[in-house]
């Protein structure tokens, strides 16, 4: 402690000297919108290290004759793809329509869903095949050799001692600049210059924030980028999605008006650029929401709106049901698919497990956030298609492009109960089988 007190100016200077050139290397390219390619080299190196680490673990496990716990991405059980009709048509005792053994089908399906169901596993983070030197995603810690432990320890030092402070500084700089510069731009009278400046300022600050997470993003098909007077829809995995999209294009954001620091940022942003912030009371009024969105897209000078129709964060292995609200508005939809590379760190925000701050800290102490963004060609609602069908069409396109599973389930199921209508579907199917038996008794 004595040491610290006497030499603290030295420490500050040392930190300053080492951090400043780094900041320059990072902030200047962000302002100019160029990249040195350092991050890609970093990414390739990391991948090689991860492979080496996994091989070592496997070797270590083999030497000790133990089995490595490999998370099986195919699930724990093999579900028979037999339908209700097929199963129940098999020969059974008795000749009537109903048989005591009919219950066995539902029984087995019920227990199968207890062991492994499609929905619950979408809301927990995806399991990895190789180890990325983060203890939070390792299942075989007791297989680590001495060399691996050293590597891991080094990793911790680098991540928490060097990367984290650097990133936090960058993030603070980015957000600070955003607030200050948008306020300045906000004072200007409405003109083309103001628009131009606002775009530049926003892009620059979001790019700094993206570097604050060491996000390595690959944009595909940029000629399909959303244009004014349209709505951009994307699948949702984490709050970072906004940063990823906003650092490559300018959007009007939609969201609830918060209080505190978030609210302050929201109010500042809106001075320079027309975002759509709803009060909590207004959110319930669907007509009001629809009207504000329609008015916005009708004005061709305003930026495209960015919406995440799933309504909640999903773990990036699937796309869940899109809420139809944004698809009822008459305008062009620009779908975007975002897929994170899970090898580098888990980007999924499990809002029931972690608070936003904890989540951001996890993100900033990971190695990197690597993702791909695909801009899909614009889609419009066709004749005779209702909002729900249109929403499903867009959802399938996004799922296909991003390599995600297209699920019919509602993301809101994370928090609410299943509707009775699903149970009725099952009952209808069963009754149809009984009726067909009645009509064709020889068939059984």
């Amino acid at each position, binding site marked *: 402690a004595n040491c610290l007190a006497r030499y603290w100016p030295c420490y500050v200077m040392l930190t300053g000297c080492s951090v400043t050139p780094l900041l320059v290397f990072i902030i200047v390219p962000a302002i100019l919108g160029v990249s040195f390619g350092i991050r890609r080299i970093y990414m390739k190196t990391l991948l090689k290290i991860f492979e080496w680490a996994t091989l070592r673990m496997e070797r270590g496990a083999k030497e000790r004759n133990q*089995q490595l*716990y490999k998370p*099986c991405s195919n*699930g*724990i*059980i*093999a579900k*028979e793809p037999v339908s209700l009709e097929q199963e129940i048509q098999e020969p*059974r*005792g008795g*000749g*009537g*329509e*109903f*048989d*005591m*053994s*009919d*219950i*066995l*089908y*539902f*029984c*087995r*399906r*019920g*227990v*199968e*869903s*207890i*062991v*492994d*169901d*499609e*929905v*619950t*596993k979408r809301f*927990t*983070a995806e399991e990895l095949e190789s180890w990325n030197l983060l203890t*939070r*995603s*390792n*299942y*075989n*810690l*007791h*297989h680590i050799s001495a060399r691996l432990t050293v590597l891991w320890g080094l990793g911790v030092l680098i991540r928490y001692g060097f990367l984290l402070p650097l990133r936090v500084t960058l993030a603070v700089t980015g957000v600070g600049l955003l607030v200050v510069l948008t306020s300045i731009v906000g004072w200007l009278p409405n003109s083309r210059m103001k628009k131009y400046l606002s775009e530049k300022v926003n892009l620059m600050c979001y790019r700094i924030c993206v570097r604050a997470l060491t996000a390595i993003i690959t944009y595909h098909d940029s000629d399909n980028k959303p244009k004014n007077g349209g709505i951009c829809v994307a699948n949702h995995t984490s709050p970072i999605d906004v940063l990823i999209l906003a650092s490559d294009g300018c959007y009007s954001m939609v969201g609830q008006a918060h209080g505190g620091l978030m609210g302050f940022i929201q109010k500042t942003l809106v001075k320079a650029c027309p975002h759509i912030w709803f009060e909590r009371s207004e959110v319930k009024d669907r007509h009001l929401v629809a009207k504000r969105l329609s008015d916005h897209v009708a004005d061709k000078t305003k930026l495209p709106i960015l919406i995440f129709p799933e309504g909640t964060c999903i773990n990036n292995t699937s796309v869940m049901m899109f809420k139809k609200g944004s698809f009822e508005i008459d305008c062009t939809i620009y779908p975007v698919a975002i897929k994170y590379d899970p090898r580098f760190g888990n980007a999924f925000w499990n809002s*029931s497990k972690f608070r936003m701050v904890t989540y951001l800290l996890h993100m900033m102490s990971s190695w990197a956030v690597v993702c791909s963004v695909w801009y899909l060609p614009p889609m419009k609602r066709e004749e005779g298609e209702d909002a729900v069908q249109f929403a499903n069409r867009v959802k399938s396109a996004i799922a296909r492009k991003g390599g995600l599973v297209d699920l019919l*389930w509602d993301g809101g*199921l994370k928090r609410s*109960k*299943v509707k009775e209508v*699903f*149970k*009725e579907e099952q*009952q*209808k199917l*069963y*009754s149809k089988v*009984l009726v067909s038996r009645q009509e064709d008794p020889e068939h059984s």
Partner: protein
Amino acid sequence: MGSRGSTLSKIPNVDKLMQETGFSQAHIIRLHDRFRALDNDEKGYLCPQDFEAIKELAMNPIGDRIIGAFFAQGPQQETVDFNSFVKVLAHFRPTDKNRPKESTSPDPINSRTNKLKFAFQLYDQDKDGKISRDELLQVLRAMLEMQVTEEQLESITDRTIQESDTDRDNAISFEEFRKSLDKVNIEHKMSIRFLR
């Protein structure tokens, strides 16, 4: 998430559990992961609400009866610990065809008889050893609800009892149940293929 390597140490009596249920070590670890995923509040045990939260189960017509099967140990059982969870699931392990028949050792949990007993208890909710006409009617109602009329339900119930009830006591005992399912491939229908 977290260090799963120490999962085995967290599960008490793993070897005994493996012996009783026939699950391999890898299966037990996977089931423990699933147990923890279902246990939302990290209580260390499961309660009916945790099961009800499984969407696919909620849409199953007999979902609540299946949940009841996990809480069938005692009269007012409200929690399921990991061992009980695994033991119930062990009913659905495929039968081991090459097991030598020893009359001294008890039936394994996944024997045909025990599978049948599991199915029987889905019908016999009051646990009196018989499926009464009323209980049968309730199951039919659960599986068909709005799709048929009450009269149709009653007639199906009566017909089923007539076919299976050999001792004419207007209820189906376990033996009558077993007999009526004699030709059914229980081993196949009540088995879940666990990977690895």
